[in-house]
């Protein structure tokens, strides 16, 4: 039953996760994500789930992995420094096809940086922070409502594709409080279990876009889970090219081949007609959208693209939208990361202009984006 609540993004994450069926939380406190932990600490025991404060982030992510194999929908939340420490574990989850959700409430980095201030500088890390060929899903919400919605999506994708999903929000969203509608009739996807008997493969599937069913421990499947290269039954095979290539290609394909399962970008305006585009993600979209509307009112021919799935990224789709524009404005609360994607999607002759601002807890204001668009159009 839908209810309106006044929630911070961090609180919305907790309610969303619990609504999605999350029953295990392990974490380590860190600003500005701690309120997720605080509310989980309060709510999880009440629903009979498990909450544990780990000794560090390495422990947290690995406990989550263990609990996920134990059969519970599991998550953790952290911020940049914690995410850095979790990288090895995340890569293990990719390799072992372990469903789990990680919420990263982004703060101003690098290093300790400005711990209480928002930023969007973990985008590339979320995609690429681990060694080796690994692909996972990265989503980003723009406000508490979407944090609630997307954390449910994150669990659904995680369970359906047996993959870790990273949900990015930032301090603005995490600490900002807004009206959130919770408990809507959302689709909850539960884990696909293997047949009780008969042939099946825990680590392969005919269709590389489908994850194989995930066995439950303690049921006599004699599961072999390993972060080493393994064959379809989980047996380590650290020599063969074929086994490795098949495995990593399949895991990649499972992610990039399922673009249709991921939250779609929101596109405003008419691509065909546009001279200028704004491409953005996360909290910045709110200023950017205001700028877009104002500019359109003033006669600027524009298209606005708000990405909600940052990995896998549909470069082709983006290319098509941006095909005709002369300039793309990419506002980011960082020195520029999404801008690399945009450049990848457009020709070298298209001007790609970053609006980059980070630090001090300042947002990018609509006026700042408007100014850049105007300048870009003058040329």
């Amino acid at each position, binding site marked *: 039953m839908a209810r309106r609540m006044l929630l911070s993004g961090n609180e919305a994450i907790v309610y969303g996760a619990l609504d999605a069926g999350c*029953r295990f939380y392990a974490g380590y406190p860190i600003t500005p994500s701690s309120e997720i932990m605080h509310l989980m600490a309060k709510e999880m*025991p009440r629903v009979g789930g498990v909450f*544990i404060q780990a000794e560090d982030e390495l*422990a*947290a992510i*690995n406990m989550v992995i263990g609990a*996920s194999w*134990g059969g519970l929908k599991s998550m953790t939340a952290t911020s940049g420094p914690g995410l850095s420490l979790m990288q090895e574990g995340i890569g293990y989850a990719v390799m072992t096809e372990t469903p789990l959700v990680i919420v990263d409430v982004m703060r101003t980095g690098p290093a300790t940086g400005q711990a209480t201030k928002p930023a969007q500088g973990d985008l590339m890390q979320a995609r690429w922070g681990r060694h080796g060929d690994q692909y996972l899903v990265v989503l980003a919400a723009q406000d508490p409502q979407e944090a609630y919605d997307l954390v449910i999506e994150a669990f659904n994708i995680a369970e359906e594709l047996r993959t870790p999903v990273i949900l990015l929000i930032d301090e603005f969203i995490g600490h900002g409080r807004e009206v959130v509608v919770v408990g809507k009739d959302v689709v909850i996807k539960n884990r696909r279990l293997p047949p009780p008997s008969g042939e099946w493969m825990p680590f392969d599937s005919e269709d590389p876009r489908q994850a194989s069913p995930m066995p439950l421990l*303690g049921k006599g499947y004699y*599961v072999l889970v390993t972060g080493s290269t393994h064959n379809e039954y989980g047996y380590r095979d650290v020599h063969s090219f074929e086994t490795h290539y098949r495995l990593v290609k399949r895991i990649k394909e499972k992610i990039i081949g399922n673009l249709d399962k991921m939250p779609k970008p929101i596109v405003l305006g008419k691509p065909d007609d546009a001279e200028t585009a704004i491409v953005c993600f996360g909290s910045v979209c709110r200023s950017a959208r205001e700028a877009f509307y104002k500019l359109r009112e003033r006669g600027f021919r524009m298209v606005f693209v708000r990405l909600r799935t940052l990995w896998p990224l549909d470069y082709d789709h983006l290319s098509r939208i941006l095909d005709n524009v002369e300039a793309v404005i990419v506002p980011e609360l960082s020195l520029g990361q999404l801008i690399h994607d945009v450049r990848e999607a457009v020709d070298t002759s298209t001007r790609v202009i970053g609006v980059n601002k980070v630090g001090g807890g300042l947002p990018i204001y609509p006026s700042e984006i408007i100014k850049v668009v105007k300048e870009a159009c003058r040329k």
Partner: protein
Amino acid sequence: MSMPIHPSRRYLREETLPTAFCPGCYNGIVMNALFQAFKEMGVEDLRDYVFVSGIGCSSWIPSPYIKADSIHTLHGRAIPVATGVKLSRPELNVVVIAGDGDLASIGGNHLLHAARRNMDLVVVMINNLVYGMTRGQLAPTTPRGMKTITTPYGNPENPFDVARLLGYTEANYVARWCVCNYIQLKNSFKEVFTRIKRGFRFIEVYAPCITYVVRREKKSPGEKLKELMRRCIPLKKYYSLLDNERGDKIPIGVYKAEDKPGFLENYRAYIRKAMEG
């Protein structure tokens, strides 16, 4: 008369044998002792057991050899993964088997905190005195003065006496056996699955690496076993000796055996409080 079936094989994945361990590697002896414990406990198969290991030779014991659910984790992370498994599935016996490097070097923090929490796990640490898998480097357990490939002039560091230190934590059960103490080791395994069934139960198995310790001493695996039998003395006796009387003796025995509620029971009580109020 055809070859009778070795009693250990009931608990092994047939298709994985022979193991990839070096000839003579003591890991197999630990497996025999563990399996004999299971057999004597009347355990038909290991479907109620989950084995969790790290990275290292000893971490291969469960993965892939033991026929049971097993999670072969990252280097050093067996204990947190095992914790996650146990907390999500309290009805399963969760057993960690890993090396001294894995558990006490890179994984030292988790070991410490799991012991503090008296987390309901059985942890078996194979102390082979070096990093076997990566070719014989210094481990935190390597004795002073021993030459390894990363201490070519003789280890200048103090070794970590893991079982002794854990004896001072909140763990329920802590013991050390040498691989030559087959019967005691087997009985110790039975103890942690039958008599003390909760809390953190830690068994260190002293089992020098054949390739990077024993062979370098120009000893055969069998000779070394016999040497070890001579060197093991009960820990009470060992600690009553003065430092200079201890020589090359190895203290074996049970440092601690209690039956306090483990983390899980405390957490259950906690949940009850949450649900009530």
